[in-house]
Each structure stands twice: as C-alpha cells, then as structure tokens.
C-alpha cells in the first residue's frame, strides 16, 4: 500500500511537467492548446528512438524538449501568421504529429528494455522501488518551477503575462504579442515534450497512442490545484499545479481501489475534470438556493 502511494507521488511529479507546460498557455495566454496531445507522444518517441540509437538519456530528453518546441512553433505560426483559430491550429499539428511519431519510431510501439534511461542513473538505481521516479521527478520539477518563476519575473516574462491578460494594451505598449504567443507555445510544448520523454523512460516504452487524453490530465492538475488551494500568487500557483498533479494520481489510485479497471481511466479522468470545472456553477446554484430560502423566510 505504501509502495502504491510512493508510486503515485512519483507519477504525479513526472506528469506535473505537463501541467506546468500547459499552465503557460491555458492560464497565462488564456487559450486551450490541443498541440500537447501530439507533443507528448512525440517527446516520448524522439527520446526512446534516440536512446535506442545509443544517445545518452539526458541528451535524448533534451531532444524531446526540442521537438516539443518545434510543434509549438508550428501551432504558433498557424495561429498568429496563418490566422487559424487556436483550437484548430492545435488539432492540425496534433494530427500531423501522429504520422511523424510513427515515422520517428518506425512502428507503433518502441521499448526501452535493457536500454539506459535517466532512471537507471547510478545514484537513482540504488534507491528502493519507486523512489527513483520520486527523486527524478522532484529534481525536474524543482528546476523547472524555479526557471519558470525566474522567467515570469523578467521583463520578457511580464510582457508574456500582459499579452494573455490584455492583448490590446500589450500591443499599445509596444509588446509584440504574436511573438509572445509563439514563444509561449514553444516553451509550453517543449516542457510537455520533455514530460513525454520522462514518462516514456519511467514506463519503459513509447507508444504512438500515449497522447490520447493527456490534455485532460494536464488540465486536471491545474484545476485540482486551483480548486484545492484557492486564491494564490502566481508563484504559489505554479507549485499548486504539481500538488494538483500528485493529488490527481491519488484520486486515480482510489478509483482503481474501488474496483474500476484501467480501461475506465480516461472516462474517469474526464468526469473528475468536468466536476472540478463545474464547481463554480454548483456553488452558484447552492447560493441561489440559500438566497431563495432567505427570501422566503423574510416574508414569513
């Protein structure tokens, strides 16, 4: 049981990269980027294929970051220069990525059996079961969070935030908002590509269909973090994403314990996310009922 808990924390930390990446577009630029469903498996595919070719796992993970950035660049150009709506631009790149991923791997599924991975680094190998993924995830998340915190407090980061907050104002202050959006999409998808590489190394394989539904998982970590922790500063919100991701893993664990099968997970993920996102509506309904009640008692 404790092993499962530790495993959930490890999974939560590795998958938190997706939440952090998506946070940049979904919460800061304020639009949903579907590219991630193609970027995530592409990061995994590129990393696993590279390791199979004898590339160092660390380098292969950075490569995954790079291909992720290229996906983001493609979506960004379609959206800003091609004037294609962001949702459709993302879907176009995501669909194209499927074919590219098959090309990269040469088949639908590629294993890392008996190949070096980041989790087999000497200092991780000596750890008890599941603690390797926790440690690796922790290192990655801390570094990533610190980099994002620094970036968002720079002049460039502030211009990036302003673009998502009030584009017209940003432009009137000389901020090149198209470039900011492209940059955001590139960094976001780079991080998600890296996430794909980490998850693939943890699972021991890359699969062409592993991208299906990952946007829901990434959104879940963002939204659960927000629902649980409420009003926070920007830096705290970044940390809340990781905690949300871990909590989400525990929810899944619980659901599996209740007797659902892993085949039901995507359905359950969507239900969990939908419920979280509808929370404000439920609260309003609840309040309205209270108001009606009060209205009635006042007249009695």
């Amino acid at each position, binding site marked *: 049981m404790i092993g499962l808990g530790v495993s959930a924390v490890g999974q939560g930390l590795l998958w938190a990269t997706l939440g952090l990446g998506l946070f940049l577009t979904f919460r800061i630029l304020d639009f949903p980027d579907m590219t991630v469903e193609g970027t995530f498996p592409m990061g995994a595919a590129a990393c696993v294929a590279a390791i199979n070719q004898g590339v160092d796992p660390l380098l292969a993970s950075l490569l995954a970051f790079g291909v992720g950035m290229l996906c983001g660049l493609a979506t960004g150009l379609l959206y800003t220069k091609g004037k294609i709506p962001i949702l459709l631009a993302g879907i176009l790149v995501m669909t194209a990525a499927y074919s590219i991923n098959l090309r990269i791997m040469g088949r639908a599924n590629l294993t890392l059996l008996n190949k070096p991975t980041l989790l087999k680094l000497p200092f991780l190998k000596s750890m008890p079961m599941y603690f390797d993924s926790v440690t690796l995830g922790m290192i990655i998340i801390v570094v990533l969070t610190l980099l994002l915190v620094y970036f968002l407090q720079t002049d460039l980061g502030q211009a990036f*935030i302003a673009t998502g907050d009030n584009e017209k*104002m940003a432009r009137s202050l000389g901020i090149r908002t198209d470039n900011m959006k492209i940059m955001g999409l590139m960094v976001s998808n780079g991080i998600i590509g890296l996430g794909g590489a980490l998850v693939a190394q943890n699972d021991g394989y890359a699969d062409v269909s592993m991208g299906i539904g990952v946007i829901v998982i990434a959104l879940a970590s963002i939204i659960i973090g927000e629902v649980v922790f409420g009003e926070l500063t920007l830096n705290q919100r970044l940390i809340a994403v990781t905690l949300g991701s871990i909590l989400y893993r525990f929810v899944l664990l619980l659901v599996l314990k209740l007797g659902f099968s892993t085949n039901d997970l995507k359905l359950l993920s969507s239900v969990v996310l939908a419920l979280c996102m509808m929370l404000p509506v439920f609260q309003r309904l609840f309040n309205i009922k209270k108001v009606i009640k009060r209205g009635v008692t006042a007249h009695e």
Partner: protein
Amino acid sequence: MSNPILELRDVVVNVNQNTAEQIMILKHLNLTINDGDFITVLGSNGAGKSTLFNAIGGNLPIDSGDILLHGKPVGHESEEQRTRFLSRVFQDPKLGTAPRMTVAENLLLAEKRGQRRGLVPRHLKQAMPHFKEITSTMNNGLEQRLNTPTGNLSGGQRQALSFLMATLKRPDILLLDEHTAALDPKTSQQLMRTTNERITDQHLTCLMITHHLDDALTYGNRLIVVNDGQITFDVSGDAKKALTQDKLLEFFNDFEG
C-alpha cells in the same frame, strides 16, 4: 513652438477595401501637429475622429498619403513599432490596463513602452518608491493600491492609471480617445483636471477627442473639428480663446443642418 512633430499629408483610409461597400473614411486629410500642441478634437459620430487616431496609431493601414514624424515617414510602421513615440488612452477603462496584474506591475510594463524586453529581472521593488510618488499626484488613492490587481480598481482609478501609464515614459504624441467619457461627472472632471496639469507641466504634445464642448473650449491651445473625413475647422491661440460654445454650436449647425 511651431516646430512640426507629426504631419499627416493627404491621408486616405478606406474600409471594406475591394468590396462593393468600400467607403472612404479619411478623405485626403491634412494635419500638422506642432511641438507642445494640446489639440482638442471635435466631430459628430462617424466623422472619422477614431479613424484618424487609428491611422496615427497604426491600428489601421493608410491607403494613400503619408504620416511624417519629425519629417520622416512612419506610415508603413506597425502599431507596435509606433509605440516608441506614441502612447494612447482608450475610452473603455478595461482596455488600458492588465486586470490580473497589479497597479505597480502595470506601471512597470508602461515604463518600457516601445523598448526591448529581455530576460532581465524586472526590478519591481526598486521602482516602488517612484511609483508611489507619481500615483499620489493623481489624487485618487491610487498610491494605496499599488499591489492590487487593476481588475479590482474602480473605473476612475483604472482610467487615471491608464493615463499615468501613457505618460510615464514621455511620448512624442499622446492620443486621448474620450478617456473620461465612461466616468461619472465628478470623477471625469477630476481626471480632466489632472490630465491638463500633467500635459501642461510636462509640455506634452497631445490630441484629445471629446464630446464635451466646454472641455474642448477650456483645455488645450488648439481646437479642430473633423467632419466627413476632413478637418473642417482649425483654430489655435487667441482665436481659440475667443471661441464660445454658441459660436461652436452655430458652426456645427451650419455643417449638419
């Protein structure tokens, strides 16, 4: 004083280009704006006042003619490029500030208008004393709310902040597009007074669209009327001082009656 900063020469702006409904909004408009001019801009709805601002600001491309800044053509430059010499306050308080960012963060963004923004720390703390000082000149309690997201400010405070942001880094040309119109009369007057003070003190060159005839008469050294895509009336100096509301109304009636 008669040193031209910005010149519009024979400027034409069409809408619905290349369609059956093509309409010419600015019809070979000419305007010379001199250093230190505070010009109030009058005109009925649809006369082309906002189009004039959008043409100067680069939000709308001009179809012919040219815009010159200190004698150099800038008509081809993008909206973002023009922000190095131009700033703007919109009518809608929501447009001028980033709602989720704090007052101080907004000011910091405005301080770098038109400049390169790199991966260097923003240095918010160091800027705070300066921000406290300038916000207190607005006389509306803004200095107490430097760490408040601007979305939580009142319309008046937001608009005062927008104005402050537009003048924080001195613009060569300041465009005020009915920036007090969305406010209640008292707040509107107060912002109008601070606007006037700041423009006079800093010797800013400014165009201000207004629908208040008395504001147009009270403030500024020059008054223009835009009508049907052209400037049909242009007075400055003593001639403007001698102008009265009745005379102005007479003029309007002549044109539209």
